[in-house]
């Protein structure tokens, strides 16, 4: 007899995220509820949570780059990234991100997944460059367009990572596939698996690349999607305030 009650924990996560409660709180409550419904005593739930947190500390290691990035931003790193793009007459946001997508896929396919990433490369370099290129194409960006260009920069990093890394034979996911299938007596080498990651990688490059070309088209139109109302208040914000504090609440 299967016990379905622990699935309530999943429902809690979905509801909590949808209602935009603090996600740390949502996850902790869901973890405790799931554990209790799964028949664990309270102390055991807390211990399992603590054990999981301690074992997964490596997930948070990347943050050690923040002091360096912050220090260089103080000396104008993002402004430099923008100036570099401004000096390239043919640079566009889409082309820049297509080049980055290709680099990210190739580096990941070589097993160099942590070489680039959101704190290391996207925040200090890729996003400001893409925004600067978009400003050259489009003039001053309204807030929605600026958000879209920044979000596409992060999205491009993710697509490049996910659909590059499995071509590398010693990546965790390939080893997991190998081990899972070996449990059923199916013996495969990592190489056999990683070869079959290539067609999807090519599709990912073509699909996301097409979207980036479309992004360029949208940016080269003077007023994208009819402009859409209530954003003129933020038009005067200087374009260099990307790294600055958020505008005060009342400004909208």
């Amino acid at each position: 007899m299967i016990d379905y009650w622990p699935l309530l924990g999943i429902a809690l996560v979905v509801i909590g995220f949808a209602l935009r409660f603090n996600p740390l709180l949502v996850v902790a409550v869901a973890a405790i509820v799931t554990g209790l419904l799964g028949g664990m005593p309270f102390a055991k739930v807390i211990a399992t949570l603590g054990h999981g947190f301690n074992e997964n500390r490596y997930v948070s290691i990347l943050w050690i780059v923040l002091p360096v990035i912050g220090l260089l931003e103080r000396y104008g790193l993002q402004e430099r990234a923008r100036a570099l793009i401004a000096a390239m007459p043919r640079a566009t946001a889409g082309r820049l991100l297509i080049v980055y997508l290709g680099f990210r896929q190739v580096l990941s396919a070589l097993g160099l997944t942590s070489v680039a990433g959101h704190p290391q490369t996207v925040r200090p370099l890729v996003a400001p460059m893409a925004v600067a290129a978009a400003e050259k194409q489009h003039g001053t960006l309204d807030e929605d367009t600026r958000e879209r260009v920044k979000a596409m920069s992060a999205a491009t990093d993710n697509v490049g990572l996910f659909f590059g890394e499995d071509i590398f034979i010693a990546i965790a996911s390939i080893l997991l596939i190998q081990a899972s299938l070996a449990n059923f007596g199916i013996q495969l080498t990592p190489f056999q698996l990683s070869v079959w990651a290539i067609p999807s990688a090519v599709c990912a490059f073509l699909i996301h690349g097409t979207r980036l070309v479309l992004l360029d088209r949208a940016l080269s139109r003077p007023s994208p999607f009819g402009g859409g109302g209530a954003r003129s208040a933020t038009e005067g914000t200087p374009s260099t305030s990307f790294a600055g504090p958020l505008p005060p609440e009342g400004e909208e």
Partner: protein
Amino acid sequence: MINLHWLYVLAGAVFAGFAAGSARDSTNPKRWGNVAFWSLLAASFWFGDLLGDIGNGILVLAIVAIAGAHLQGRGSKESTSNEERENSSTRYGNKLFLPALTIPFTAFVGTLLFNYTPLEGTGLIDPKAVTLVLLGVGVIIALIVSYVWLRPLPLAAVDEGSRLANSIGWAMVLPQMLASLGVIFAAAGIGTTIGAIVSVIIPQGSLFLAVLLYALGMVAFTMIMGNAFAAFPVMAAAIGVPILIHQDGANPAVIGAVGMLSGFCGTLMTPMAANFNIVPAALLELKNQYGVIKAQIPTAIPLLIANVLILYFAAFR
């Protein structure tokens, strides 16, 4: 041998620095909340192995309490004005990129050097953590280079690091929290339950529907768990191996590799994959915390269709 524990010591020091930097920022009305938050994280990285499971659990609850009660804030002080940054950017020129690029460059060249030269046999670095260790080395080199070259105030890195850290806030530990949730989910048998549900609704007789259900199952389960790793063993056991490989004679390499990649399409669409989808939104200071997901869905869906077609046409030849 240099292993992850050396990095934990370094990361603990960085989090302690965030605490110190937060304490120095009197423009942040909630700064003591920030100090407590980063101090607890520093304690976890330094002493996590000594605290015991219950101790760590209580530490986690304390971190969550600070975030859940909104006790963190951010300061309004900017160390340099826009104009000063423009001037400094002109003054130092493109050389400003060098310290930033030192980090990926050290990780890249270092990993290649280590893996393809006799260095690997020396046992200097734990082979499982090579790139991360070299990333840490790159950070230290970049910090030294920046200090020697730019000659900032002694505490500038502490202040600037905590400025960035406080702009991201609680989102920085969300990925680690979700990983812990995964541990609880596994302990409570969530995977087995979902596998049982899936195996009840398998369509008989249609190969294409079975492939589709396998791929969609990977996506749905990945979106729930936040990563495809938890989904794969379950979906392989429910559909991949018994139906597609054994019953219909599919090529197991295609089922394995492309099944996992179908799951990655789900990773692009879920807030549960916080380090890829939620953290960057905070890091890039987007107004919409789901902005990155919104940007990814139009890539993820055509890519999922492509993966289903690859599964269907390549696995059964």
